[in-house]
């Protein structure tokens, strides 16, 4: 029998922002498969015009309620590159530690609060409080520690206050760092338990060959600045980001779309891991193997596993950073920044992938032009094309129903952990 299926998801749940899924299968043929971004646009690039450089990071943090630290850091890096400012080593460590806190906060939120309910057959994490209190305990402890790192280093978990042009305004006290160190050590057990839980989740058997774009690490798994690389072999300097993104405006979406060597490309944990696997902490590589994750992996559902692996890597790297901060003591964490006419680009790997801020400044340090290219903007067309391939594969399976296909499509989009408000900004 040639099957006909309908999927119509208006405002997909358990993702940040507003997007719709439409799939139509008629007599076994996929007629339509769409991922439409219907989020209200905010025009941040226009709001930035005329703003003083000291306002830019504070304003652009508000693009995202989840990765505000990443936006602030990309913004500061663009500004500092424009002015030729170099921040002290202690500030570099503190900024990376704040970023690690955000990566953990965002990944745990996605994995344990947003994605896990699909695999447990539940509408949200709330029924888990009664059904699996030990899982909720792990989720609360891991996300709580992540937020504590952000609070100690950035002054607040959402919309940071201490990350400022020239460095970091406040150095955490020794006792605060020691407490974080203890808690990070203890969290390794919870991370192991979370990985065990995810190992029991069945991963849909699906792959579509994809180009992956990320920062290129040299000696370390990359997070802040450096060259841009794609798994198809494209390499560009940070300032050449436009050639890596090629944004254009689509009729049906308030988010722009991007492409590189193919029709679309992907960014995020899986892209970072595919492009920089050998730079992961050895324990993280072991976890990747246990989760069936080998580069180059083309199954987007395994982005969840890649996030888990990154959580372990980032936890080990945070311990290293804290040890170095404690060892190096009391040096400066901030330099004075003097504005000058010029432009700068800041590329930062935020939880959902590579983020670019690009500002042009006048000589008084006021923005004359701004451009922000967001990870989910880069992923949206890849999600859109994945949906068609997914519908083609699974609509042909015996026993497929509207409900089953809707769940698969929703899980696919959630696996990308889209941040839709961000993508529209």
């Amino acid at each position, binding site marked *: 029998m040639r099957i006909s299926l309908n999927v119509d998801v208006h405002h997909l749940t358990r993702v940040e922002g507003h997007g719709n899924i439409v799939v139509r299968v008629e007599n076994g043929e996929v007629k339509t498969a769409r991922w439409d971004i219907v989020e209200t646009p905010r025009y941040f690039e226009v709001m930035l015009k005329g703003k003083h450089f000291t*306002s830019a990071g504070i304003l652009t943090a508000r693009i995202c309620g989840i990765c505000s630290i990443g936006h602030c850091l990309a913004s500061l890096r663009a500004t500092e590159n424009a002015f030729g400012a170099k921040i002290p080593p202690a500030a570099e460590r503190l900024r990376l530690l704040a970023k690690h806190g955000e990566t953990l906060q965002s990944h745990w939120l996605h994995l344990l609060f947003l994605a896990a309910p699909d695999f447990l057959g539940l509408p949200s994490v709330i029924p888990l409080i009664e059904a699996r209190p030990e899982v909720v305990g792990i989720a609360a402890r891991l996300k*709580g520690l992540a937020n504590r790192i952000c609070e100690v280093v950035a002054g607040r978990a*959402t919309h940071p206050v201490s990350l400022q042009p020239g460095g970091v305004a406040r150095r955490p006290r020794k006792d605060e760092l020691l407490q974080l160190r203890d808690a990070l050590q203890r969290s390794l057990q919870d991370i192991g338990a979370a990985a065990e839980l995810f190992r029991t989740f069945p991963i849909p058997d699906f792959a579509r060959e994809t180009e992956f774009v990320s920062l290129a690490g040299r000696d370390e798994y990359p997070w802040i600045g450096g060259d841009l690389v794609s798994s198809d072999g494209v390499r560009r300097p940070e300032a050449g980001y436009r050639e890596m993104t090629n944004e254009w405006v689509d009729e049906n979406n308030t988010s722009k779309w991007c492409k590189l060597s193919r029709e679309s490309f992907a960014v995020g944990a899986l892209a970072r891991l595919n492009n920089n696997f050998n730079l992961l902490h050895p324990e993280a590589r072991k976890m990747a193997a246990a989760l069936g994750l080998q580069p180059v992996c083309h199954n987007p559902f395994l982005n969840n596993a890649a996030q888990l692996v990154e959580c372990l890597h980032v936890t080990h790297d945070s311990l290293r950073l804290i040890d170095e901060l404690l060892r190096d003591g009391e040096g400066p964490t901030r330099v004075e920044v003097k504005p000058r006419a010029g432009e700068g680009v800041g590329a930062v790997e935020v939880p959902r992938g590579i983020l670019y801020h690009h500002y042009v400044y006048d000589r008084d340090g006021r923005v004359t032009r701004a451009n922000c290219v967001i990870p989910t903007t880069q992923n949206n067309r890849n999600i859109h094309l994945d949906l068609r391939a997914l519908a083609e594969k699974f609509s042909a399976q015996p026993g497929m129903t509207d409900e089953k296909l809707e769940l698969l499509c929703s899980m696919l989009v959630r696996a990308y952990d889209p941040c839709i408000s961000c993508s529209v900004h």
Partner: protein
Amino acid sequence: MRYLGIEPARPRVAVFDFTGCEGCQLQLLNREENLVDFLKLVDIVNCREASSDASDCYDVAFVDGAISRADEVVRLKAVREKAAVLVALGSCACFGGVNRLKNACSLPEANREVYGDKPKETEPVRSVGEVVRVDLAVPGCPVDKAEVERIVQHLIWDVPFAFPAYPVCLECKQRYTPCLFQKGQLCLGPITAGGCNAPCPAGGLGCWGCRGRSADCNMDEFWALAREKGFGEAEIRERLGFFGGFEGAP
């Protein structure tokens, strides 16, 4: 959850998001040390960002974000009709937030700048209160979860909630934060509504006024003081206009 043997009401709560970053509703999942207790206090029946349950039957609606498109007006009015209590959550919902900065630009020009020859639908940004009646406005960018917890406790025990009348400035004194205004940073702490426990100055950033004007704020005195410290009119106005909480300020 009983207190002194009394079972409180467990209100049916819904959370809705409009133009914004959704950071305020995410605060509801923070303060993880008492998250389980908080989630037991209320019955969350509709919260798109965290749950696939979507009931239209609720008592309290938390509304996150500003209003900037026609479909949002329709959606917000439907929420107002169903909710006994509508709470504006965060500076975007209360004042329009940073989104309001867009209103200083020509919208066709803004569209051309961002979308070229394929403009998207957009309207001047309004606060939630400019579109429907708001029962309680909780400011902050983002809101402070501890304050939201206190408000929810007042809601379930049916006791009116009173926001502090004092400014952020007082909370810096309470936590022994050295005064950044005295150290040469512009700071709106003396005129901004308290209740956040002043995290920004403690982290080395003067107050940006995200919670809007405090109950007893003396704007004339603040202007005189800021000018005396050498801050120019443009800088002071940029700061006052940032989150929309001082709209119409002199």
